[in-house]
C-alpha cells in the first residue's frame, strides 16, 4: 500500500517537476497528423525513463533525450507511435488518424470492443462534427438518415415533439393504440435511462430524451442485431442505443464555446381560398346544391360590410418567423490524475406557431480519478437538465374563414378568437452515476456502478372559454425514479494469437413512477395557472407504479489472430412484472466472424484493406408498461359520478373485487421474445477509401401482448395474452467513401439504405383480424391481419365517380340499385365504391386492405466536402414505398350544412372536384346538403404514395486555425451556416410526407416543420 502511494506521489511529482532534472539534452519537436496539422495535447514519453512532455497549441514539445531513446507518442484519436531518436535534429512525429484505422474501438454492451473483432451488427455515429454545426432539440433527429435500418421519422414540427424511432421494422401490436411503436432501449455511459413514460404516467408529452444535450454526446452506437443486444436481455428486442458522453482529453484544458442563432421560417402551409375566392366558392356551392329556401349567411352576401370584406391570412397571422438560440460551452481536460468534463447548455427554440416553444437548460459534470497507480479508477457523472415546452391549451385553430377580420384588425378591437390560455410542460432530470473499476490482477478487473436518476414532469395549464365564461386549470406532477446497481467482472487475457474476453455481471434496477394531478373548472375564469380549489368543485387524483429487474449476464469473446472470431452471450432477467412462477427469462446469443482479409491469400491484395463476414443468432425480449398486469390486480371500487359509495361499500362494509378489465390473474404472461438472425459483410477497399457494409436479418417477434375477450360468463372482460407474432425481414446496405481529390479537396460520402418487410404471422382468437379502434370507440381505419404488414389501411375501395346513372349497379335478382354508405341513394357524382361482398349495400363489410404505411426502403445520403478551411456538408434522408393517407385534405373537403363561414376553404381550383356529368374528377360532389356526404373517411382515393427524398440539412463552414491566421486569439474557430429542412421532393399532395403518424395518417392538427437558417460560431480555446 505504502509503495503504491509512493508511486502515485512520484508520478505526480514527475508531472509537476521540470523534466530537465534528468536531461541530457533538451530537444524540441513537433507532432503532426496525416494532413500535416499540428496535434495538440499529445503525450510524449521516453521508454524506460520517466521523461514526459505534452504538446502545446502549435503541436510543439520540449523533451530531454539522448540518442537511441525510444519515444512513445500517444494522443486520443490517433494510433500510438514509437519513434527512435536517432539524430540531434528536431524531432517530428507523424501520427495517423485512429478513426479510420482498424483499431477503432466501440462501446458495446457492458464493455468496449475493437471494431474489427465485432461479430454483431453494430453501427456508430460520431456526434461531435454533427452537433458542432447543427442545432437540435434531441440527438435522435440528428441520427436521421445516418444508420442503415434505423428509421427515424419526425412526425411533427412542434418544438419538443418526440420523433418515432423504429429499428429494423415495427414489432408492436395494439388494438386501441393507433401509433404503438417498438421502442429501443437507451443506455447513457453504461446506464439504461428513462427514455419515455408510459401513457398513464406521462404528465407532459415533451420528448423525454430532449433533455440530453446533443452537444454533450461523443458518439452513439446502435446495437441492431440480437447478438449485440441480447446482453441487455428483456429490453433489447427493439435494438439498443448506446450513448457515450464527451470526456476530457489529455493536454491543456480544452475550452469550447459554440454560439448559434437560427431563424425559423414558416414552410408551405395549407392552401386557402382567400377573400373573394372564398366568396365565389361558397356562392357556387349554394348555386349548385342549396335546397330551396336556404340562403347564404350574411357574411357572404353583405359585400359592403367592411367587417366581412377581408382576405385574412389566418395561417400567416398565427405562424410567424421565429428565432432559435443555442449556446453551449464546455471545459474538459485530462491527465494522469484522470479527467474532467464540465458543460453548460442553453437552448431557446421558439415555435413558428403562436404561443409555442421549447427551452432547454442543461449542465453535466463528469470526472474520473485514477488512484492506486491506476489500479482503481473512479468515475462520477452528474447531469442536471430542464426542458420547458410551451403550448396552447387546446388545438389552436388556424383555419378560420378568410372573410373574418384578423384579431389585430381595428374593427375587432383586440378580441381573441383563439382560446386564450397557457400550457407549460416542464421536465427536470437529475442523473447521478458513479462507478469504480478495480484492476485486480493483470487482465482481470471488477467494476461496480451505482446510478440514481430522477425525472420530474410537471404540467400546468390554464384555459378559459369566452363562450361559457368558465376557466379550466390543470396541474400535474409526475415523478420517476430509477435506481441501478451493477457489478461486472472482466477477464481478458491474451496468449499467443489467442485473445479471450470473459465478462460476468449482475445488475439490479428499480423504477418507480408516481403522478399527482389536480384540476378544476371555475365558474369564472381566473388567470391562474395553478389550481385554486373552489369549494365542492375539485377533482384530483394520484397514481403509483413500480417495477424492478434483477439480471445476471455473461459475455464471452474469443479471437484467434484477429482472424477467427467467436462470441456468445447469455443474460437472465427476473422481473417483478411477472408472477413468481414465471419470473425469469433467459436470453442467449451466439455469433461468429471471419476476417478473411487477414488470410494469406489476400496478403498481397493491395486494394482490399479489410474484409469480414459475420453471422449471429440470438434471443432478446421486451416487456410492457403495466407493471402489475400479471399479478391479478384487485379493485376497491371508486366513487361513482355522484360521489356515492355504491360501488365501494355494501351495508357500510367495503371489500375488494378483481379488476374486471385487466385483473385476471395471469401467471402465464411472459416476455415478448424476439429471435433474430443476422448475416453481414464488412469490406473496405483502397486503403479504407471505400467501405461497404451489408447486413441481412430476420427478426421474429413472438408473443406480443394483446387482449382477448373472455366469455361474459367468467365475469372478466378481457385478458392479456402473449398472442401475436410479427416477422420483419430486411436488407441493409452502407457505402462510405473517403476520397482525396487532390489540392486539398476531400470528399466523403455516406450512403445507406435499408429494405424491411413486415408481416403479421399470428393473432389471437383464431387469427381474427383486428380493426384498430380507440378505447372511446373511434375507428382508426387500420387493420392488423395475418399475412399482411402491420396497421394496413382498411378502406373502401374507390373506383372513381359515377358519371352516368347507368354505372350504378343494379341487383339483377331484385332490381334494386346499389345502396351507398349511410343508406344513401346513389346519384351521379357520388363516389363509386366497390361492393366487395356483392350484397348491393355498401357498408363496413365492404372495406378491404388498401395500403401499407410501413416504409419499405429507408435511408440517408451524406456528403462532406472539405477544401482547406471550407467545409460543405449535406445530409439527406429518404423513404421509398410507403402509403400514406391525406386525411388533412379529406377533412377540409368534407363540408357540412353549416360549412359557410365556419372554416377556411381550400382553393377548389387545385383539386379536381366533380360538379357535372362528364367531369373527369378525382373527388366526388361536395354537396354539403346531401343526405350522406360523399367525402368519406377511409376512402382509398386518399391513399397516396408517401415516398420522399429530403435534403435535411446543408452546412457551409469555414475553419480558422492558427496556421491560417497566426494572430487568431483562439486555437480554432469555425463559423458556419446551416440550413435545416432544406427541401423535400415528394409525390404526396399534402405539405410534407414525413409529417404523418406512424400508422400513416396526415394528422390535420399537425404542426408543420419549420425551415431553419442557423448561423453560428464555434470556438476552441
Amino acid at each position: 500500500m505504502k509503495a503504491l502511494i509512493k508511486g502515485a506521489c512520484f508520478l505526480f511529482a514527475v508531472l509537476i517537476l521540470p523534466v530537465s532534472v534528468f536531461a541530457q539534452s533538451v530537444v524540441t519537436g513537433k507532432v503532426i497528423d496525416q494532413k500535416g496539422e499540428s496535434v495538440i495535447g499529445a503525450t510524449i514519453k521516453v521508454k524506460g525513463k520517466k521523461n514526459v512532455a505534452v504538446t502545446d497549441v502549435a503541436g510543439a514539445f520540449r523533451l530531454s533525450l539522448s540518442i537511441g531513446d525510444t519515444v512513445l507518442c500517444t494522443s486520443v484519436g490517433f494510433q500510438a507511435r514509437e519513434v527512435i531518436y536517432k539524430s540531434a535534429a528536431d524531432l517530428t512525429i507523424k501520427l495517423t488518424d485512429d478513426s479510420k484505422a482498424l483499431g477503432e474501438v466501440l462501446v458495446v454492451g457492458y464493455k468496449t470492443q475493437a471494431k474489427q473483432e465485432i461479430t454483431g451488427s453494430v453501427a456508430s455515429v460520431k456526434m461531435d462534427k454533427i452537433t458542432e454545426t447543427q442545432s437540435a432539440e434531441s440527438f435522435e433527429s440528428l441520427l436521421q438518415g445516418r444508420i442503415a435500418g434505423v428509421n427515424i421519422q419526425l412526425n411533427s414540427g412542434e418544438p419538443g415533439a418526440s420523433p418515432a424511432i423504429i429499428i429494423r421494422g415495427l414489432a408492436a401490436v395494439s388494438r386501441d393504440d393507433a401509433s404503438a411503436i417498438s421502442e429501443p432501449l437507451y443506455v447513457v455511459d453504461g446506464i439504461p435511462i428513462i427514455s419515455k413514460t408510459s401513457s398513464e404516467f406521462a404528465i407532459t408529452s415533451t420528448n423525454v430524451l430532449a433533455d440530453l444535450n446533443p452537444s454533450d454526446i461523443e458518439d452513439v452506437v446502435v446495437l441492431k442485431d440480437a447478438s449485440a443486444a441480447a446482453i441487455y436481455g428483456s429490453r433489447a428486442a427493439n435494438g439498443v442505443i448506446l450513448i457515450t458522453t464527451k470526456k476530457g482529453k489529455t493536454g491543456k484544458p480544452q475550452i469550447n464555446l459554440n454560439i448559434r442563432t437560427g431563424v425559423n421560417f414558416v414552410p408551405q402551409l395549407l392552401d386557402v381560398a382567400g377573400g373573394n375566392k372564398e366568396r365565389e366558392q361558397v356562392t357556387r356551392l349554394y348555386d349548385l346544391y342549396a335546397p330551396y329556401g336556404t340562403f347564404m349567411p350574411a357574411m357572404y352576401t353583405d359585400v359592403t360590410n367592411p367587417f366581412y370584406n377581408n382576405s385574412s391570412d389566418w395561417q400567416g397571422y398565427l405562424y410567424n418567423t421565429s428565432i432559435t438560440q443555442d449556446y453551449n460551452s464546455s471545459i474538459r481536460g485530462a491527465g494522469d490524475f484522470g479527467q474532467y468534463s464540465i458543460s453548460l447548455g442553453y437552448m431557446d427554440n421558439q415555435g413558428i406557431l403562436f404561443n409555442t416553444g421549447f427551452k432547454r437548460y442543461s449542465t453535466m459534470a463528469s470526472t474520473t480519478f485514477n488512484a492506486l497507480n491506476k489500479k482503481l479508477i473512479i468515475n462520477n457523472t452528474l447531469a442536471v437538465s430542464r426542458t420547458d415546452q410551451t403550448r396552447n391549451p387546446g388545438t389552436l385553430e388556424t383555419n378560420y374563414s378568410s372573410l373574418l377580420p384578423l384579431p389585430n384588425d381595428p374593427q375587432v378591437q383586440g378580441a381573441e378568437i383563439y382560446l386564450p390560455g397557457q400550457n407549460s410542460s416542464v421536465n427536470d432530470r437529475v442523473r447521478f452515476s458513479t462507478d469504480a473499476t478495480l484492476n485486480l490482477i493483470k487482465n482481470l478487473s471488477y467494476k461496480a456502478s451505482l446510478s440514481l436518476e430522477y425525472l420530474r414532469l410537471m404540467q400546468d395549464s390554464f384555459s378559459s372559454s369566452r363562450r361559457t365564461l368558465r376557466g379550466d386549470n390543470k396541474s400535474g406532477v409526475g415523478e420517476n425514479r430509477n435506481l441501478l446497481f451493477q457489478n461486472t467482472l472482466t477477464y481478458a487475457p491474451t496468449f499467443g494469437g489467442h485473445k479471450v474476453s470473459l465478462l460476468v455481471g449482475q445488475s439490479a434496477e428499480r423504477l418507480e413512477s408516481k403522478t399527482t394531478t389536480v384540476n378544476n373548472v371555475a365558474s369564472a375564469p381566473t388567470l391562474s395557472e395553478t389550481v385554486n380549489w373552489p369549494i365542492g368543485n375539485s377533482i384530483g387524483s394520484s397514481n403509483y407504479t413500480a417495477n424492478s429487474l434483477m439480471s445476471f449476464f455473461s459475455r464471452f469473446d474469443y479471437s484467434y489472430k484477429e482472424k477467427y472470431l467467436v462470441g456468445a452471450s447469455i443474460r437472465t432477467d427476473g422481473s417483478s412484472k411477472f408472477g413468481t412462477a414465471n419470473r425469469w427469462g433467459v436470453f442467449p446469443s451466439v455469433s461468429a466472424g471471419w476476417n478473411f482479409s487477414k488470410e494469406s491469400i489476400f496478403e498481397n491484395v493491395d486494394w482490399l484493406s479489410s474484409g469480414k463476414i459475420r453471422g449471429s443468432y440470438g434471443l432478446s425480449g421486451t416487456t410492457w408498461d403495466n407493471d402489475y398486469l400479471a399479478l391479478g390486480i384487485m379493485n376497491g371500487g371508486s366513487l361513482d359520478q355522484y360521489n356515492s359509495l355504491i360501488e365501494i361499500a355494501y351495508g357500510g362494509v367495503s371489500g375488494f373485487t378483481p379488476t374486471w378489465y385487466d385483473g385476471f390473474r395471469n401467471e402465464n404472461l411472459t416476455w415478448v421474445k424476439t429471435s433474430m438472425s443476422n448475416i453481414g459483410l464488412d469490406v473496405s477497399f483502397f486503403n479504407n477509401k471505400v467501405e461497404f457494409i451489408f447486413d441481412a436479418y430476420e427478426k421474429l417477434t413472438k408473443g406480443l401482448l394483446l387482449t382477448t375477450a373472455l366469455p361474459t360468463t367468467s365475469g372478466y372482460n378481457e385478458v392479456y395474452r402473449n398472442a401475436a407474432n410479427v416477422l420483419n425481414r430486411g436488407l441493409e446496405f452502407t457505402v462510405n467513401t473517403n476520397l482525396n481529390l487532390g489540392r486539398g479537396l476531400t470528399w466523403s460520402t455516406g450512403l445507406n439504405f435499408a429494405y424491411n418487410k413486415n408481416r403479421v404471422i399470428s393473432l389471437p382468437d383464431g387469427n381474427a383480424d383486428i380493426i384498430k379502434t380507440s378505447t372511446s370507440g373511434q375507428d382508426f381505419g387500420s387493420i392488423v391481419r395475418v399475412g399482411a404488414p402491420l396497421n394496413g389501411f382498411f378502406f373502401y375501395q374507390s373506383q372513381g365517380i359515377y358519371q352516368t346513372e347507368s354505372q350504378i349497379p343494379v341487383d339483377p335478382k331484385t332490381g334494386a340499385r346499389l345502396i351507398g354508405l349511410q343508406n344513401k341513394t346513389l346519384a351521379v357524382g357520388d363516389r363509386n365504391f366497390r361492393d366487395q361482398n356483392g350484397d348491393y349495400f355498401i357498408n363496413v363489410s365492404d372495406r378491404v386492405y388498401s395500403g401499407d404505411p410501413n416504409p419499405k426502403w429507408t435511408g440517408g445520403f451524406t456528403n462532406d466536402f472539405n477544401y482547406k478551411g471550407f467545409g460543405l456538408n449535406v445530409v439527406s434522408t429518404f423513404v421509398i414505398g410507403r402509403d400514406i393517407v391525406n386525411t388533412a385534405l379529406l377533412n377540409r373537403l368534407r363540408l357540412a350544412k353549416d360549412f359557410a363561414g365556419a372554416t377556411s376553404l381550400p382553393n377548389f381550383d387545385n383539386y379536381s372536384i366533380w360538379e357535372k356529368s362528364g367531369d373527369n374528377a378525382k373527388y366526388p360532389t361536395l354537396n354539403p346538403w346531401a343526405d350522406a356526404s360523399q367525402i368519406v373517411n377511409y376512402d382509398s382515393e386518399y391513399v397516396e404514395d408517401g415516398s420522399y427524398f429530403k435534403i435535411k440539412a446543408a452546412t457551409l463552414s469555414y475553419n480558422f486555425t492558427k496556421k491560417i491566421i497566426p494572430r487568431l486569439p483562439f486555437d480554432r474557430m469555425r463559423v458556419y451556416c446551416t440550413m435545416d429542412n432544406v427541401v423535400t421532393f415528394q409525390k404526396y399532395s399534402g405539405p410534407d410526407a414525413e409529417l404523418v403518424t406512424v400508422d400513416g395518417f396526415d394528422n390535420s392538427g399537425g404542426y408543420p416543420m419549420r425551415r431553419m437558417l442557423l448561423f453560428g460560431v464555434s470556438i476552441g480555446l
Partner: protein
Amino acid sequence: MKNKVIATFLLVLILAETSCKKWLDETPINTVTEEQAWKNGADAEGAVAAAFAIFRRALSGLTKEDTPSTTRNGSWGDYYFWGDSRSGDWITPNNDGDWNAGFQNHLIQRTELEPMTNWRLFYRAIEQCNLVLEKIPEITDGLTDERKAQLLAEARFMRALSHFYAARVWGDIPINLKARNVDALGREPLNTVMRMVVNEVDMALPNLLWENKGTIKESRSRGTRGAALALKAHALMWLKDYQGASDAIKQIMDSNNYRLATIDGLRTMFDTGESAEVIFEMYYDKSKGEYSDYYGHIMTYYLTNPYTSRGELSLAVPKSKILEIYPDYARDKSDKRVNEFFQSIDFSVSSSELRPIFADPLQNGERAIMFAKFRKVKDRTYNLMDAPVPIFRYADVLLLKAEADARLGRVSEALENLNKVRTRAGIPTFTRDDAPVVIEEVLAERRRELIGEFHRVYDLVRLGRLHEFNSYITEQGEKDGAGFFPVSDEAFANNPNMEQTYYWQFNQ
C-alpha cells in the same frame, strides 16, 4: 489488500443473491394484488359484501364503464325493465321511444335497451362468490370458524340468487360455479338452473342465521335463512314443485320472524326498509354514502316534483288500468293500497315550487298519475334516492304459498294466506273455494300487492301467460322465448357454445 477486495466483492455478490428474491417482489400501493387480498377476516367480510354490492349494481344495470361495447352513461334501474315494464300495466306519459320499445318487447336494436340484454354484471357477482368460496376457507387470521361458515353460506346464497335472477330474465343461462372459469360455457335449461339454485340453497341454509347483526335493514339486506328459503320457494315454483315451495315458506312462517306490516307501516317499509315484513332487500342508505342519483334507481323515474327535480312523469300506470287492477277501489274505494301506491300532483303549480299533492290519488286522470309506492323526502332540488330495493317480502311469500297450496288442492290454506294480504288492504276476504278461481285470484292479488316491485312479469312468464297481458307478444312467441330477454352480442364473443333464444333469432 487484494484478498480484502476479493472478499468484499464476494460479500457483495452474496448479498445481491439473497436480496434478489425480495427485490423482485414489487407490489402496488394504490391497490392490492390477488395474493394480498385474501389474508384475514376483514378481507373475507369485505369480499362477501362486495359480492352483494355487485349484485346491487347488476340490478340497476350495466353502463359503458362495465363494457365499452355499450354506450349508456348510467344505469336506468334495469330490474324494472326486466320485471315490470312488459306487464302491460305501464305507459310512458311523455311517449319516450326507448321506454315504449321496452313495453313493446322490442329489446334489441335500441341502444339504450341493449345494455339490458347483457348479463355480465350477474356473472361478476357470481365470480366474486366463486372467489370467496375458493379463498375464504384458507383464511384463519381474524376469522372464527363460525363466522367463516356464515360468510361461505352467504356467498353460496348470493351465487344462487344471481343465477336465479338471471334465469328469470334470460331463461336458459350458463351455470358458473368455478373461480376463473374462462371456458366457453353454453346455456343450461332453466329447470337445471333452478334445481342448482335449490341445491345450493340447501347447502347454505344450515349456516345461515335468521338475523344478521344490526338493524332490520342491515340484517336482511344480507344472506339470511329467511331470504334463502324465499329464494328456494321461488325457484321451486319455477320447477312446479309446489309442495317444496309451500314447505319452504312454511318454515319462514314458523320462524315467527316476519309479519305483515300495517297499511300505514308500508311507508316505513318502502322508505327505510326497517320493517318486519321485509325478507330480503338491497341495501341503500344516504347516511352511509350508499345512494343513487339521477341514474341507477328506477324509483327516480317513477317520481317527479315534489320528490325530485323532474318536472314530468316518465312512467305511469294509466287510470283505467288502476281501476281494472283494483276493482274494489273502483267500486267503493275500499282498497287502501291505491291511496298508498298512487298520487296525483298539482302540475299547475310552477315547477320552481314544491308541488302540492291532491287528496284524490286518481285526480290527474288517465296519463298523469304518479306511481308513488316508493318515495323520498320532498325536495325538488335533487334526485338522491336511498330507498332499499325490495327483493322478497312476507306478503310476496304468503301469496306464493297461497298459489302453491291452491295448486296442491289445499284451498282453505291458500285462502287463509290470501286473505291475510286482502285484509290488510282493507278489501273483503275471498271465499270462493274452487282451486282454479283461487289461483287466478292469488295472481291478481300478487299484481295488486306487488305492482312496481319487479315480480309481475316473472309471474306471468313462469305461467306462460305474458301474452295475455302484453298485446305485443303472441302465444307462439312466448312459447319460443319472447318472455325472456335476448342474449347480448357480447356474450357470443369467444364463445362458440352460446346460442340465442329461439324467438330472438328471428325477432330483432
